[in-house]
């Protein structure tokens, strides 16, 4: 019996080992980008020890937190097999509106000189509403006219940009950057109550964390979240199962828009001087972070932790490249290559599953 079982084990031993090798190869290929990025991060940390100093870590944390809400918004659109090219412009528009409404009263170049400084919370609500309306328009056009969000958001980003340029000429501004923000606003965003070493963690990191928790709840614990994944996986099957596909698409884009509003509000104070260029190309970084984090263009696949990982990894790499004094132009090439590799890995996963 013992011999028999040993023989059996020996006989079939090759197959599991072969399978194991295939599984290992699959795991290596599917995680090739993560492995590579982690190696690069370790190498940078060894060559430039200041890269892992408290100041640098807080910097990475802050930059990641500023980009997290927009990435969470775009991730919803990608889960629906769509995308959102208007995100960066929506962030820029919301940042400029927030900044214009929260300029200090005595500031010489105040955009609306007669406007008193509004309460911070009312401006948050205003920019979230603006973002949500912009998102709802994207969602409505996508769902009702059955258009791909790529073309819808390409159109809306131009409309938003044009509207923003016109907005910047209002009052006494004449198209200049909006700065001279009220202390209540900058303190609310950039103030701090916790330090790592001598580096203060800005308040917006905690807001971003709070939004992430809310989004995790929305994605995983609500009917809307489940409908979003169902529509992303197979919209016809979702429709047959009784899911209101049109409503779900509009809501996903509206929620994304509201998150762009939050990002705009954070960026307004973080940057301090807001122009029409604020938010430019933010959507590309966010889409890249989502793809790196495993939010699939196949639809219906994606996790909040993946989005967080994508945002943080991308940010660490770019802060690291800055530490290496890599030319800004070359950084674009590197970013493009990372996105291409992430897409190839995403497509590979889909083909293997098929």
């Amino acid at each position: 019996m013992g011999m028999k079982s040993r023989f059996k084990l020996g006989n079939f031993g090759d197959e599991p080992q072969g399978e194991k090798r295939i599984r290992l190869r699959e795991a290596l290929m599917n995680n090739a980008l993560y492995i590579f990025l982690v190696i690069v991060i370790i190498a940078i940390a060894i060559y430039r020890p200041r890269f892992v100093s408290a100041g640098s870590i807080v910097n990475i944390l802050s930059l990641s937190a500023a980009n997290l809400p927009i990435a969470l918004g775009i991730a919803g659109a990608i889960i629906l097999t769509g995308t959102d090219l208007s995100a960066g412009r929506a962030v820029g528009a919301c940042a400029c509106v927030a900044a214009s409404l929260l300029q200090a009263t005595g500031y010489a170049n105040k955009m609306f000189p007669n406007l008193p400084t509004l309460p911070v919370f009312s401006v948050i609500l205003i920019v979230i509403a603006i973002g949500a309306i912009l998102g709802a328009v994207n969602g409505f056009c996508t769902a009702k006219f059955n258009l791909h969000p790529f073309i819808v958001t390409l159109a809306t980003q131009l409309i938003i940009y044009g509207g923003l340029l016109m907005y910047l000429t209002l009052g006494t501004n004449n198209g200049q950057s909006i700065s001279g923000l009220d202390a209540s606003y900058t303190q609310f965003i950039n103030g701090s109550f916790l330090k790592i070493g001598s580096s203060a963690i800005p308040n917006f990191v905690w807001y971003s964390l709070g939004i992430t928790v809310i989004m995790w709840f929305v994605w995983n614990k609500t009917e809307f979240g489940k409908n979003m994944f169902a529509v992303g996986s197979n919209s016809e099957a979702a429709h047959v199962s009784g899911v209101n596909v049109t409503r779900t698409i509009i809501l996903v884009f509206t929620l994304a828009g509201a998150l762009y509003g939050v990002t705009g509000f954070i960026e307004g104070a973080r940057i301090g001087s807001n122009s029409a260029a604020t938010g430019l190309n933010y959507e590309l970084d966010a889409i890249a972070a989502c793809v790196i984090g495993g939010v699939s263009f196949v639809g219906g696949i994606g996790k909040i932790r993946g989005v967080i990982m994508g945002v943080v990894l991308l940010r660490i790499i770019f802060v690291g490249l800055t530490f290496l004094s890599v030319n800004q132009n070359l950084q674009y090439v590197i970013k493009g290559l990372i996105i291409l590799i992430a897409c190839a890995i995403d497509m590979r996963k889909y083909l293997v599953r098929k």
Partner: protein
Amino acid sequence: MKNIYKNTKVSVKVLDGVIMAGITALAVIIATQF
């Protein structure tokens, strides 16, 4: 909205090659910056 990879004709082997080539290119670019 349709899955954008649905009509893809590429094989897994070709994609493996693309991934490895991309990572090699990235590694070379970044290594020259140290």
